[in-house]
């Protein structure tokens, strides 16, 4: 893990995640975007660990730009954030990143095939109308793709549903009537999604309160972080500076075998 613990963004992300799922919850998130700025950004460090220094990165739904700002510090990545909300664009500018105001729902037109080392969609997929289409677009533009999302399968969500209520948690801090999240899924759902399309999963990390867990990820994890590409040997050009991440899973299992 070479992600910079010196970064204030990282520190914030780690500290903010301390609350954990099931803590007293607010039904309001700070951000107007799909990405929930009020919630822990525990995925930052994991994402950073998977990127080669100087990688060319697109961050979709970049919110206030804190992920790219963090990755600039931690891995000297170069790239652009894409954000639709006015306040997000403004905050990203203030955060010192390159931000492009655009609607992801209309795809990534204007970005050439395989033109970025990595395309990131962090805690935004669940809020997108065209969830499947954006994944296809990401795989077109990026040699690799990183997707993170709140795990709907977490035990606390299941418990709330058993009690007859829609889940509200730190990772899903909205009420049913004001949530931007319209495509929630579980770890098992996303595993199946990738397997059906025969995408190659390079890494999957499931976090609970900011720490990776191995046992019962779909029950205990609150945040899932995936790195995948079209196929293991799909001829996609790897960047010349590509370096395997330090914590890359040596088994590099194809998606179909990941715990269902």
């Amino acid at each position, binding site marked *: 893990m070479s992600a910079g613990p010196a970064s204030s963004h990282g520190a914030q992300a780690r500290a903010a995640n301390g609350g954990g799922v099931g803590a007293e919850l607010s039904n309001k998130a700070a951000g107007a975007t799909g990405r929930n700025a009020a919630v822990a950004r525990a995925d930052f460090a994991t994402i950073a660990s998977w990127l080669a220094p100087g990688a060319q990165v697109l961050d979709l739904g970049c919110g206030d730009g804190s992920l790219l700002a963090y990755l600039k510090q931690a891995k000297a990545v170069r790239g652009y954030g894409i954000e639709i909300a006015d306040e997000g664009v*403004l905050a990203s*500018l203030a955060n010192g990143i390159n931000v492009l*105001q655009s609607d992801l729902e209309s795809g990534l037109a204007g970005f050439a095939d395989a033109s970025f080392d990595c395309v990131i969609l962090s805690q935004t997929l669940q809020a997108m109308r065209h969830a499947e289409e954006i994944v296809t677009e990401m795989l077109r533009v990026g040699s690799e793709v990183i997707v993170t999302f709140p795990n709907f399968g977490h035990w606390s969500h299941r418990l709330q549903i058993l009690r007859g209520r829609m889940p509200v948690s730190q990772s899903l801090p909205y009420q049913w009537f004001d949530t931007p999240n319209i495509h929630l899924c579980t770890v098992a759902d996303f595993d199946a999604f990738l397997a059906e399309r025969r995408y190659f999963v390079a890494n999957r990390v499931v976090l609970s309160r900011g720490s990776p867990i191995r046992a019962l990820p779909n029950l205990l994890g609150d945040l899932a972080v995936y790195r995948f590409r079209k196929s293991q040997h799909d001829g996609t050009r790897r960047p010349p500076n590509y370096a395997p991440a330090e914590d890359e899973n040596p088994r590099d299992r194809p998606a179909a075998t990941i715990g269902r």
Partner: protein
Amino acid sequence: MLRLANAMLSFSATTGGTDGGRQIQNVSVGPVVAQLARFDDELPLACGRSLNGFELAFETYGAFNADRSNAVLVCHALNASHHVAGYYAEEPDNVGWWDNLIGPGKPLDTDRFFVIGVNNLGSCFGSTGPTSRDPATGRRWGSDFPIVTVEDWVDAQARLADRLGIAQFAAVMGGSLGGMQALAWGIRYPQRIRHALVIAAAPNLSAQNIAFNEVSRQAILSDPDYHGGHFDAHATKPRRGLRVARMIGHITYLSDHQMEHKFGRDLRDGLQYSFAPEFEIESYLRYQGEKFAEYYDANTYLRVTKALDYFDPALNTGGELARALEPATCGFLVVSFTTDWRFPPARSREIVGALVDRRRDVSYAEIAAPHGHDAFLLDNPQYHAIIRAYFARVLPPS
């Protein structure tokens, strides 16, 4: 509504901003003085001719910092001038055309930046142009003045930067045709510019845009008072042509929605069953046309529209904008406005796409504004916040 009307008046440059300065003057740069810089060296032009010496009118606001790294050049659009901010002591109502954006504590903060407004070559507001006298003949240039391009303007501006001792601009900024100059600066003088702010612009004109310009030119050229461009010798000017040209321009600066909102089908005095101005929009266009015809020069108008038509940095790279932008290494802020149909957001996105293709530092904001092309002159909170945030990056607060 009042704000829009004022801004549109200020779009008409040096004619005076009426009461637009009412609240603005509180934070204005205050009274300003136009200056004139004389250059005696030859300036080669894109058309193949050259100018043996020329003058540029300019104004400055704020002060240099210790290492002169805080200079910002503001380029004007079609009919504006070097009078960008502040007002003239003897004409307190004559407020600069971008005064809402530039001044102490404003998005382009003259407490931090040394800001320069410059009148382009070929204009009629003080810089050498068709209304100046040709030193070779002693007569006014009239239509003998060369046709100048955006690149010619930028070359002349670079001479002014030399004169002012500016090795490198912190930023060059402009809206519309001014944005094209900022883009040209990035390509032509990459070592002399750290940032370019390209607002409500396009990488070139569309056929529709050229068509509007051609109709405007034909209005002037077909006016019997044009006299082949030497109307001065006949003690007249092609007012009818200028009026029509300005009316056409005004239609394209406003969105359909905004024109509906502002004028609708309102009548001045009921139906008259005549060709007198009956609808408010007719009255408005005629007023703008009359005013413009008095203060603007026809030969200048012809040339500025040609400069717009000719601008096309990708002309020499087989239409590939990304290759044309290869030399430009500065940081870019590109801004467009949703209802601008003269230079719509898609045209700005072409610039952004080419810069991303070259992996340049670029940010892009698409401002939701109902006002059409004119929005770049108006005080939209998100727009101004974006400009302010970007200038914090240009020169981080100490």
